[in-house]
């Protein structure tokens, strides 16, 4: 009896391994917790010193002098002094050339003010000069200035900011408040199809860098009545306009509130692109997978809005964010919907297959060659063995050499000027590959696998998802090199575990595959005919679930 128990007691090797098996994940989890805490700590910044509030004094010379001291040294800031109408009231306008609309200033501000005549106005009836001044002010604002947006302020900081954005400031002698006139006319490019997301069939529209243009495109091509565009400002030093777009009676109010909360937490000087916004509001910044979708196409944004999702637009970039996103959305293209359902479905299935190939092909190659040659049909195995005869490297190194070369080529291809681009493709792909095979560094099968992988990864419509798969391909190769086919299985399990744990704004990332919601499957791997897609996807918890028409 005692012997039996002793027989079953673990020996010291097993105990050592048990300790190791506990320590390694524990240390890794501690590391991740420490990283996250570090990030949260940097958010506790002290209140930045607000600029001194400086107020206008009412004395025209003094106020203009203050502003001249602040920004007058810039060569593109202009000060224009003139007299109003047939009185002797002086006025000064301050504007930035290039940003403000010159015609508007000339025709509708200066001309109107210079030509105004007070003769027939019953202004001189009022006894007290204060009342008279008020009336003159109101008169100028309501009847003389032929400008759409007019604001009054005596906050000189606000004035300066607005001047530098393209508005015009109007100071009138004797009045405390100054006018801010919206005369912004920035430089923008024409609306053309984005280079990164071309379609064979679909509108050739793309967003531009000007926020007003983008919101205009959304209003023009989207549903008009309940499309809500909420503006706010982000960035401490470089204040940029940010617009949240959603359809009022479809989007989930909790989602909108969550997005607003996260945007409020952004604490950074300057946001050059929506990529910054994406990285600051996403759920899990340590994950490889993007949890926010970005696009340049208005039709994608509008379809997303119709499904109950929310778009975020930022001034200065044509890339618009869409939240929430699931993994299957990253593999979808608007073309699936514009073509008929049979080609749409088949192309989508092809794209899924291409994604799997792009992810697993090199690792399967490594595991079959190095660990499980028995799995390959005999004839193929013999021919592969023949071609791998003189290759000096083990299959992992061979695969790594080729894959890294392809990645370098791809990165270089992004920055090549247009005339050289295609030539480099031919040089890199064909000649170097051929040369490598002839030199005996890699086997031809490897070249085929790598080429297939590269081409498959180009079928993925979203660039961010493409990057993810490229990175994961290397991880899969390492797993395969360690454990062969078992390693590939472990990798798949690990990947699926991660996908299943990840959430994007409350929506499980692996939807609509899981949890099972059969009605969402109509748009997942297949694309059923439009007549059958009667409801909006359940995963976005929309308020109005029946699609109208």
């Amino acid at each position, binding site marked *: 009896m005692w012997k039996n128990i002793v027989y079953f007691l*673990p020996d010291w090797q097993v105990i050592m391994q048990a300790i190791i098996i506990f320590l390694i*994940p524990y240390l890794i989890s501690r590391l991740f917790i420490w990283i996250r805490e570090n990030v949260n700590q940097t958010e506790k910044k002290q209140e930045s010193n607000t600029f001194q509030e400086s107020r206008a004094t009412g004395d025209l010379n003094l106020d203009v002098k203050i502003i001249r001291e602040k920004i007058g040294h810039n060569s593109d800031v202009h000060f224009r002094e003139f007299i109003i109408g047939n009185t002797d009231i002086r006025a000064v306008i301050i504007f930035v050339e290039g940003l403000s609309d010159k015609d508007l200033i000339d025709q509708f501000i200066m001309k109107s003010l210079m030509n105004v005549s007070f003769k027939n106005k019953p202004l001189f009836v009022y006894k007290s000069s204060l009342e008279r001044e008020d009336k003159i002010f109101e008169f100028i604002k309501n009847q003389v200035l032929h400008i759409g947006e007019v604001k009054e302020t005596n906050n000189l900081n606000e004035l300066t900011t607005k001047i530098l954005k393209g508005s015009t400031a109007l100071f009138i002698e004797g009045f405390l408040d100054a006018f801010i006139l919206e005369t912004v006319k920035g430089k923008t490019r024409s609306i053309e199809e984005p280079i990164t997301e071309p379609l064979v069939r679909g509108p050739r529209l793309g967003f531009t860098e000007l926020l007003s243009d983008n919101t205009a495109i959304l209003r023009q091509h989207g549903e008009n009545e309940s499309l809500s565009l909420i503006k706010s400002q982000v960035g401490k030093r470089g204040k940029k306009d940010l617009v949240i777009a959603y359809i009022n009676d479809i989007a989930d109010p909790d989602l909108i509130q969550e997005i607003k909360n996260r945007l409020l937490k952004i604490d950074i000087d300057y946001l050059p692109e929506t990529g910054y916004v994406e990285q600051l509001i996403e759920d899990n910044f340590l994950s490889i997978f993007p949890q926010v979708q970005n696009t340049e196409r208005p039709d994608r944004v509008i379809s997303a809005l119709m499904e109950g999702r929310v778009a975020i637009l930022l001034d200065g970039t044509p890339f618009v964010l869409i939240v929430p996103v699931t993994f299957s959305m990253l593999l979808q293209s608007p073309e699936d919907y514009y073509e008929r359902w049979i080609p749409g479905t088949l192309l989508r299935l092809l794209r899924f297959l291409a994604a799997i190939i792009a992810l697993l092909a090199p690792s399967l190659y490594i595991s079959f060659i190095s*660990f499980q040659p028995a799995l390959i049909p005999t004839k193929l195995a013999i021919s592969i063995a023949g071609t791998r005869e003189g290759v000096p490297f083990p299959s992992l190194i061979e695969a790594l050499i080729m894959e890294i070369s392809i990645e370098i080529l791809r990165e270089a291809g992004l920055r090549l000027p247009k005339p050289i681009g295609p030539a480099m493709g031919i040089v890199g792909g064909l000649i170097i590959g051929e040369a490598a095979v002839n030199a005996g560094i890699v086997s031809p099968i490897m070249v085929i696998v790598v080429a297939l992988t590269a081409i498959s990864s180009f079928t993925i419509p979203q660039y961010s998802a493409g990057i993810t798969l490229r990175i994961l391909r290397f991880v899969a190769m390492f797993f395969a090199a360690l454990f062969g086919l078992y390693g590939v299985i472990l990798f798949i399990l690990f990947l699926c*575990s991660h996908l299943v*744990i990840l959430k994007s704004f409350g929506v499980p990332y692996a939807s609509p595959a899981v*949890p*099972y919601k059969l009605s969402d499957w109509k748009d997942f791997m297949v694309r059923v005919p439009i007549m059958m897609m009667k409801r909006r996807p359940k995963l976005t918890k929309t308020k109005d679930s029946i699609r109208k028409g």
Partner: protein
Amino acid sequence: MIISSNDKISTPQAAVVVTNFILATGILTLPRTSVEKVKTPDVWLTVILGGIIMMIAGVIMVKLSQQFPGKTFFQYNQEILGKWFGWLLSLLIIFYFISISGYQVRSMAEVTNFFLLESTPIWAIIMPFMWIGLYLNIGGINSIARMFEIILPITIVFFLLVLFMSYKLFEIDNLRPVLGSGFLPVLKGLKTTTLAYSGPEIMLLLVAFMSQPNKAIKAVLIGTFIPLLFYVFLVIMVIGAFSINGVVVRTWPSIDLIRSFEIPGLIFERYESLLLVIWIMQIFASFTISFYAAALGLAQLFDKKVKFFIYCLLPVIYIVAMTPHTINELFKLEDVLGNIIIILFGVLPLILFIIIKWKRGKVDETIQ
């Protein structure tokens, strides 16, 4: 440890969890172990009967759990049996779950070692497997249920495909005569086949997590029915291909079935590795949920967070997995566990159910 309202799973998810827990090692060994006891080709009847018995046991467990909404077995058995007995019982069940996890991991490592990776040491096979299980468990029951929803269709489709492809070897005569030696041999194998369906005991925990506990009976019935169909089909194909004499001499008859046929011209030639890929995923599912059940039990006994116990149980399960020295000892462990299951999950829930009904009846009487 109170279950937060975020951790709710839906009814189909509960059924999927039960199915995944049931479909584990049994797939590979069921034909042999059942034929060893029954010795006639009527094993498929035994399999069906075993499934029905397990369904009844599952329903009893669900009914017991439904008496205590929102509480798992570890929390409410103290109400039934008093503090100390309840504690002891919970500890026993936790110990069972730990042993089952260890058994699953070890059998997976053995099979992988034998078929896929001949010279890799067992610990190198087990460690990454357990780490990934740990990662999934930290995500909570929701993530586990979602993962199972991914694994289950893949498993079923592949296995069915593979079983269909073996129709060439199938000879209906191997299944005859039906009930040739009478009905008695069928009953002899009942214990083995019932144990192949061990899995509904997870419902003792799951009902507390369900968003609609009143549908739990449907979940457990469907969750047991799918493996029932699966096992019947498997047994019929395997015995039809090998006949009972052939089945008894093979350790892993299902794998041998896959090895025995060839479909020339297809991409792969030898499919058993492919089958093993799928089977490993299935064992992963089984291991993960029993790991989580054990950690949950300990967390609710000691009133701490589940995460803490998930990490702590990792070395414990590893030691349990490494304890059997040979594969025969592994099978002996399986037998021991089988006996425990019958007592713990067959007899005990019934007794507890009767006790709680009696107690509640008494309370009603005293109120009146």
